[in-house]
């Protein structure tokens, strides 16, 4: 007797539930940042050796690889370093309201953040453009205490 090779192939549905993972992360720099945002201020960490200002602050300098804990306040104004205009959602479907988002270097910081810019036609957006933070009315100590940025 021989085995007959059939046509059948099955596709089985799999699931890998990433919500069951638990990650440990040093959140001290993030806490420093969101606590300051409650006062509508932005604080990061400065390296005592090279002077780099990180927002949010790590507990060590990535370049010098030394511990650092000097808290510094940076401005809530900054410069657009790069930008994009989102015309589709994350699945590629077109959206009606274009959104101008930018990489922004806050005055006094060496690292960048990303935020939405309003109050300007996207066609007028430029690298080097100045922007200011628009805070929510009642900050609670969250990254969402910044509502958006506006062109100055």
């Amino acid at each position, binding site marked *: 007797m021989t085995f007959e090779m059939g046509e059948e192939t099955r596709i089985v549905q799999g699931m890998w539930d990433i919500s069951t993972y638990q990650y440990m992360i040093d959140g001290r720099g993030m806490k420093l940042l969101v606590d300051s945002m409650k006062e509508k201020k932005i604080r990061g960490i400065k390296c005592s050796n090279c002077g780099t200002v*990180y927002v949010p602050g790590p507990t060590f300098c990535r370049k010098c690889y030394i511990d650092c804990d000097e808290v510094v306040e940076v401005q809530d104004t900054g410069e657009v370093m*790069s930008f994009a205009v989102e015309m589709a*959602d994350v699945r590629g479907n077109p959206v009606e309201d274009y959104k101008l988002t*930018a990489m922004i270097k806050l005055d006094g910081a060496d690292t960048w953040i990303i935020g939405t810019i309003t109050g300007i036609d996207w066609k007028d957006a430029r690298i080097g453009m100045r922007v200011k933070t628009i805070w929510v009315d009642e900050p609670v100590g969250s990254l969402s205490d910044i509502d958006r940025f506006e062109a100055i």
Partner: protein
Amino acid sequence: MRDVGIIGVGYTPVFVSKRKDVNISEMISEAVDAAFRNTNLTPDDIDAITYGNMETFEGMNMPHLWGADHCRAIDKPYMRIATGGTTGMSTLHSAYYHVASGMHDVVMAITWEKQSEGDSQVGLGGIVMPEAVCMAQFGMDLFGGKGMGAMGGGSTGAAAYQATSYLHHSGASPEHIDKMAALERSNAALNPYAHLRKKTTVEDIQATPFIAWPLRFGHTCPTSDGATVVIVASGDKVEKLADSVAWINGVGCGTSDPATGNFIEGQITDPAEQEAAKMAAAKAFAMAGIKDPKKEIDMAEMYNGFAHQSLMWLEKLGLCDEGQAHVMLDRGALNIDGELPTNASGGVFSTNAIGASAMNRPAECALQIMRKIEGGHQIPKKIKNAVSHGWGGMFQYVTVTVLGDEPRHG
């Protein structure tokens, strides 16, 4: 270190969106068989095997163990590599180290992805999962764009910021991205192992919608199913076993700050800066004895998930001055019959089985050097030195391989 050469390449018969007729191991075995067929070698000739893909794209932790028989790896040393977009080239580098060190003489490097069996956005999301979960807990609106954040650019992610920054600093225009895209898609039309194979005009590209300005749908890569296998051998084995060879003369790898994604430790910087690329290229060129890459390199295969990147990498790798890549494009220098044919294969931008994408770059260079290109994209001039490049991670991890028609040393 010993001389090491690529003596054969095997591809799956096609690279397409969805291989419904084979499972993962069966698909890989097609490329393994092709590599044996193309070299007239048998599994007995192989001393060790390196293997690369990215686990989150199929949601499978150890596919190399499932596929050990199809990879003809039973009873052999077997090493798995996973370094993101660079996986394919890292797998080749691993094979190179196996042989250059003197540990092994003939090594097979297997790379693949079968993206139709998973979800690419979930796979990419896996890269930043711990950071993303943490940032969400601190109030970041991950996809809505409200507040202070580390993610943006819509479905292209930070590639759109990279493109804007690159255009600004290079003086290229968005139309140059359209032009590069049309050139590469038209090259892909000549390549039987490319995925998107349609002769494409600048107007065709410009008719596609913007996803995140300055990037259009027509500037983005597909997701593909496919596998690529390369066999490398030591100098003395090349003489005994091979009828043609492309020498691996320089390898380099560079890492720098993530540029995007890791907001928690304040690591967001310019995604178009690419110090890692400069570092990796300098190392690989020095090792290969290439003193002036602008003059000595005859062809380039750049890793480009997005069409602007081909131009950007030419500058970062030192194949032209900063701001000159689009000028070369305009004068036809990047065409298959130009001074520096770039992505004659169609690039990652036309074929993207992620684990194999950074392997297809040196594989294409090797076949061009050996003049064994199938299809219509053989570069007419003699290729003495070729450079291939891989890119991935959080914008900051780069590999470079320099290949040549003769062994060269720095």
